[in-house]
């Protein structure tokens, strides 16, 4: 591949000027067509599920001929929706909470300190994100079975922590890096203690990062299928995503509208978390974050 040093050899192509103008004119059209095609299909993909869940029947027409809410009212026949929601919430909130508590100090060290084995530590944190979940998931599920935690909520929480904790550390580190060290130093020089500085200076400035990491971790935990599936072997320990997969695999048993209804419940759960989180984060906080970022970089 071209090295930076080979650059000055180039200025002999006068012909490219001519080809540049049609490209310049066509490029935006091609760009918006490509991205537009993807996004339109994406929105349509999600919309079909929502429409399907309200359809009495739906074949080969643009929209279903008649609508009904029966698929939602009869969801309880197949699933204990309350239990599914409770399990999903418990797992997502517990995993995220623990990941934030344990991950914050680790991210703080990665952001602020330089030390000998830092590279090794970083690799160790990154490995669970790079190795396929089944590789450590099957032995971990076997271990949990040996400790009588197979098919339990605690087991699901434990196995989900494995990729979520490194993920939280990864997301938090740049947010902590952005908080100016001199603010901490100033507070300390003015006589504030370590804990006071942390509580009044570091924490308020890192809250947007904590919320971002928290929201992303919750959303990821809800959607994380492979690992939960390995442990959720009992009906009482199933989460929404496992139940949805179970229904979709056994598609012949029930109407696809019934599966769509469960899918909509699943989607609303994820959205609810995101919307609640956005209520607590002021958009301006994100703006400040982005501003400091660009001034630092540029």
């Amino acid at each position, binding site marked *: 591949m071209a090295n930076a040093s080979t*650059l000055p050899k180039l200025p002999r192509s006068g012909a*490219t000027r001519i080809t540049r103008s049609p490209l310049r004119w066509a490029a935006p059209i091609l760009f918006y067509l*490509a991205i537009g095609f993807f996004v339109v299909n994406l929105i349509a993909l999600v919309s079909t599920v929502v429409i399907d869940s309200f359809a009495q029947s739906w074949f080969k027409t643009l929209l279903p001929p008649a609508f009904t809410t029966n698929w939602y009212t009869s969801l309880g026949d197949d699933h204990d929706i309350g239990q599914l929601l409770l399990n999903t919430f418990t797992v997502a909130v517990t995993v995220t909470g623990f990941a934030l508590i344990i991950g914050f100090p680790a991210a703080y060290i990665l952001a602020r300190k330089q030390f000998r084995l830092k590279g090794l530590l970083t690799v160790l944190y990154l490995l669970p994100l790079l190795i396929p979940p089944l590789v450590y998931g099957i032995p971990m599920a076997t271990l949990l079975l040996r400790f009588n935690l197979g098919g339990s909520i605690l087991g699901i929480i434990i196995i989900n922590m494995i990729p979520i904790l490194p993920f939280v550390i990864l997301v938090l580190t740049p947010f902590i890096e952005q908080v100016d060290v001199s603010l901490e130093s100033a507070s300390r020089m003015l006589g504030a203690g370590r804990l006071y500085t942390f509580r009044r200076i570091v924490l308020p400035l890192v809250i947007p990062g904590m919320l971002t990491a928290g929201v992303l971790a919750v959303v990821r935990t809800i*959607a994380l299928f492979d690992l939960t599936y390995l442990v959720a072997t009992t009906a009482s320990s199933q989460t929404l995503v496992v139940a949805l997969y179970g229904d979709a695999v056994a598609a012949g048993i029930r109407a696809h509208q019934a599966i769509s209804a469960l899918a909509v419940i699943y989607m609303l759960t994820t959205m609810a978390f995101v919307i609640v989180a956005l209520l607590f984060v002021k958009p301006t906080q994100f703006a400040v974050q982005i501003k400091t970022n660009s001034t630092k970089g540029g």
Partner: protein
Amino acid sequence: MAETAIKSTPITRSTRRTSPIRFDWEIIIFSLPALLFVCVLFVYPFIYGVSLSLRTGALGDGDFTLNNYIQIFNDPVQIETIGMTFEAALPVTIFSVLVSIPLAYFMRRGIRFERLITTLLILPVTLGTVMVSQSMLIYFGRQGWFNQALQALHLIKNPLTLVHNWLGVEISLFIQGFPFVFLLILGYMSGINPDLERASKMLGVGAWGTFRRVILPLALPGIAIAFCLNFVANFSVFPSAVLVGEPNALTRVLAVQAFRAAYEQYNRPAGTAIALVMGGIELAVVGGVLFLRGRFTRGATLGGGKGT
């Protein structure tokens, strides 16, 4: 406690150069919980998995054996499975990267509706594989909107079969992976110093020449990382290979086989062995790409500020 604290913080910036050997209790105390967690929950299960895969018995209670590995490499079905996993993972990874490069190049200085576009692109990540696959069964089905639209536009006569085959898995992996690859490459491209581009233009190089000789070499390390991360995710594809693929024929990937061995044939050691082979192959590919990245891009890291 307070004394060491006052000493340590104001000099954190200079520690980079002065004393990397200095013993720092803070590092140990702060990192210990996370470190313990990763060791107990990741490193230990991993080592346990290796020893599990070398034993007989449903839960690995039996004697030492190499049989689980010998069986994989002696079984033509499993060898075929490895090939199928590559056939499922490689094309969609290459396609995602190739599509993302020109799109990211165009968007590198920001465009209209950028916020909206990026927000919409994160949607599939939010929904997760199972939800995307389940929606695909309806949307890309023979009577779904996608086929209806193509027929209404008279592009096709008979509906296309887009799910329950290899193509279904590719589409599902693309929906999941493309936004991620695109945003990652976009990040690298917008990080390239715009002055380099201006300099190249000033020296009379056209847009294509500048892209090929300046932007692409500088973005290549980032593109390699995006390729690796996407390949890792695609190589271990599991739920969508079952839901929108043909798990008994063309999309019988390693993850599906590992799960079947461990959970349907109740042979945890055999399942673990297949999973470990999957992880080993995947790490070898990633290692190879990173090695090439190191060889080709040495010296081409003239980074710069973001934006103008």
